[in-house]
């Protein structure tokens, strides 16, 4: 074994810079690459949101950048002067802002960080494998995603600007280039192409995760000893495998409609705009759970560690994730109540949507059960995990509310929907932060600063709620989603005060993230060195060095127990690693 360990080190040192940091086949390096790519896009997506809020709070007021440039510059024909004339957000650019904000956050931030970064980093090491099943395919999966990232960013700079048909790109608006009223068709075209490329990357990832989890678990790592985050990634990989090809095919059809004059989604040529909606949401609703399940997995990892208690109802957690994954295929119609739907069919979708709340509630109650009677500690990862549970509960409850067709018809396409989606999807960002604060020591071998982390959490939590909760009021007041200037509507004028309040809070929320950015960058180089197991946790990654070498383990691990045996009476410490074998002295110990 020591020979193998030495070989691992030798191999590690022989790799040059390019092989080690750029074209790496090590699942941990690929995970870090996805993390950095996702965080860069998080900054981009966040800045787009700030501009959206600027426009809604102070419509058609120049951004505070006008003074930075001369009069001559604004009269010139540079990209900035054309896109933001004198610093003012035009209606065309506003459409691109909200379309690209959603696209970037969903496809280029949450999935790459949760599945690409943490899935990659954690899956092999948590099941006791040396690497993924197909390391080359894994590398290829990242490098296939890179052109998708580049194209989506480049699309801001093509004539006519980035995609502006909403992240859902409903037809016929998106199917006919002229309908958007912008100078060129390439925004939506590049949007389609970029997402098709991302679909290939995602397919390669799914193949790798599923094969790895099915085939490569260490001796003793039975299905029901898998950490819940691994279960979550496994289920999400299956959902991605089945859902993303549907989107890819639909995007292909949309691209044909736009480029080659076909009429899949255009009634004048015998096509059907509703077909796009069905295909998009048949992908889109599983996608919602693709986003949220990993955050649930992260929470299920973190709560037991800091409550020093086993997870409440491990099997119920697994079965409810499977139930959510199954039900996610038969709820897509609830996005289309307003699109013209047989009321009987609408009722069926209402029912399935309400049923999906049951497994979600089981998970929430099990998290509460995990906390019940625990000796809870509150380091930053725990705070963010609790924050996720809180936000998911609010977002989940408003979800049940609008699952009912008559309610949905009232609030459809209002800010109520915007509030709901942000409580769920932006709540997932809390899961991402929890994961980063929790696994940063293992990923980079250094601890993040706790004080900065706590400041980051409290500011983010407060400003998040002050930003998104009032949107419920706007929605019930009839404030439409995706409008450029609320002051154009007389009945919205009394609500403008709320818009201004939200915008101020959103800008504060954005500014609070500077604490995270500073903490992350500083700790990367100067943070306190992390020990092997700083949180005294049970799962396998904490038995490897921080950061783990290529090949992960110096000796192949053998697993003796489930992942959540905290405060076990069998040992003196309050944690019991999965690899630790306890000799049972007498039969009486198991009463």
């Amino acid at each position, binding site marked *: 074994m020591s020979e193998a360990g030495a070989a691992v080190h030798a191999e590690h040192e022989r790799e040059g810079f390019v092989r080690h940091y750029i074209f790496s086949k090590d699942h941990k390096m690929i995970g870090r690459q996805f993390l950095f790519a996702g965080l860069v896009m998080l900054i981009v997506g966040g800045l787009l949101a700030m501009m959206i809020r600027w426009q809604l709070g102070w419509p058609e007021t120049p951004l505070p950048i006008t003074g930075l440039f001369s009069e001559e510059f604004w009269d010139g024909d540079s990209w900035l002067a054309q896109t933001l004339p004198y610093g003012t957000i035009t209606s065309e650019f506003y459409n691109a802002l909200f379309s690209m904000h959603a696209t970037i956050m969903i496809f280029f931030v949450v999935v790459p960080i949760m599945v690409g970064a943490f899935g990659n980093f954690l899956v092999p090491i948590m099941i006791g494998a040396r690497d993924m*099943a*197909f390391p080359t*395919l894994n590398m290829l999966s990242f490098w296939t995603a890179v052109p998708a990232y580049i194209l989506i960013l480049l699309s801001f700079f093509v004539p006519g600007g980035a995609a502006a048909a909403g992240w859902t790109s409903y037809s016929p608006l998106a199917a006919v280039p002229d309908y958007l009223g912008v100078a060129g068709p390439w925004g939506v075209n590049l949007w389609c192409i970029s997402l098709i490329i991302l679909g290939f990357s995602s*397919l390669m990832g*799914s*193949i*790798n995760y*599923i*094969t790895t989890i*099915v*085939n*490569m*678990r260490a*001796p*003793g*790592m*039975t*299905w029901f000893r898998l950490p819940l985050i691994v279960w979550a990634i496994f289920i999400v990989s299956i959902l991605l*495998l*089945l*859902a*993303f*090809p*549907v989107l*890819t*095919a*639909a995007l*292909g*059809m949309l691209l*044909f409609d736009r480029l*080659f*004059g*076909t*009429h*899949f989604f255009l009634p004048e*040529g*015998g*096509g*059907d705009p509703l*077909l796009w909606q*069905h*295909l998009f949401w048949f992908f889109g609703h599983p996608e919602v759970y693709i986003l949220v399940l990993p955050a649930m997995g992260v929470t299920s990892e973190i709560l037991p560690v800091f409550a020093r208690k086993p997870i409440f109802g491990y099997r119920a957690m697994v079965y409810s994730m499977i139930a959510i994954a199954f039900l996610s295929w038969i709820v897509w119609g609830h996005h289309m109540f307003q699109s013209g739907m047989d009321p009987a069919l609408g009722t069926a979708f209402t029912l399935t949507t309400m049923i999906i709340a049951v497994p979600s509630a089981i998970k929430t109650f099990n998290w509460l059960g995990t906390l019940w009677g625990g000796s809870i500690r509150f380091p930053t990862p725990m705070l963010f995990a609790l924050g996720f549970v809180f936000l998911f509960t609010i977002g989940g409850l408003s979800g049940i509310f609008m699952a009912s067709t008559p309610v949905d018809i009232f609030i459809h396409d209002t800010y109520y929907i915007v509030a709901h989606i942000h409580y769920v999807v932006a709540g997932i960002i809390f899961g991402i932060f929890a994961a980063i604060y929790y696994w940063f020591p293992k990923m980079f071998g250094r601890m993040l600063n706790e004080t900065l982390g706590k400041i980051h959490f409290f500011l983010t939590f407060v400003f998040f709620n002050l930003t998104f909760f009032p949107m419920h009021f706007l929605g019930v007041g009839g404030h439409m989603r995706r409008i450029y200037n609320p002051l154009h509507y007389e009945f919205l004028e009394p609500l403008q005060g709320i818009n201004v309040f939200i915008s101020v809070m959103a800008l504060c929320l954005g500014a609070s993230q500077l604490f995270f950015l500073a903490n992350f960058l500083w700790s990367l180089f100067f943070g306190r060195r992390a020990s092997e197991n700083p949180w005294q946790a049970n799962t396998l990654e904490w038995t490897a060095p921080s950061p783990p070498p290529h090949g992960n383990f110096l*000796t192949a691990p*053998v*697993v*003796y127990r489930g992942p959540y045996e905290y405060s076990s009476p069998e040992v003196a410490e309050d944690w019991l690693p999965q690899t630790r*074998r306890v000799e049972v002295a007498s039969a009486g110990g198991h009463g």
Partner: protein
Amino acid sequence: MSETATARLEPFESPLTPESWGKLGMWIFLVGDAMTFGTLLAAYGAVRFASADWPHPADVLGINMTAFMTFLLICSSVTMVKGLSAARHDDLAGFRRFIGLTILGGAIFLGLQAYEWTHLIHSGLTLSGNPWGASLFGTTFFIITGFHGMHVLGGVGYLLCILALGWNGKFNGHNYHPVEIAGLYWHFVDLVWIMVFTFVYLL
């Protein structure tokens, strides 16, 4: 206690495909690919049933030649099985012959498809135009058969690589998994064609 003894005491769930991880990987890929074809065929069904002037396929498309193409592809599946069997029994000549025949079958299929497309385009059926009625008839025809044709083309290239790799006897009774995995892909492409033939040509 030695490590191997400890390991044996623990429940060990054996891998699903212990002989080759690539085999499971290919199965998973095929599931994803089946979803893509499924979406295309579902969209085809949706636009066809909503259409008032969908031509009857048999009137426009040549069924006889396509039936022969289908027969050819099924035969190539048989030769694929024979090629794998030859590799497993260390029969190098048989491996070369049968994989070669499989590639030939795929290549003839592609040639006939190119001929069929040229013929149809000359008679006016295009990606966005159809002299016999609904334009989406042409659209779906070219997109679905084209997407399948790309899979056949990819399969021919894939099998050429397998043939080149195994030309000197690399594949044998101990190492035949790459041939088997390529076979999975090839049979899938055949199966999809039978679906395409049924829905696009026959019904």
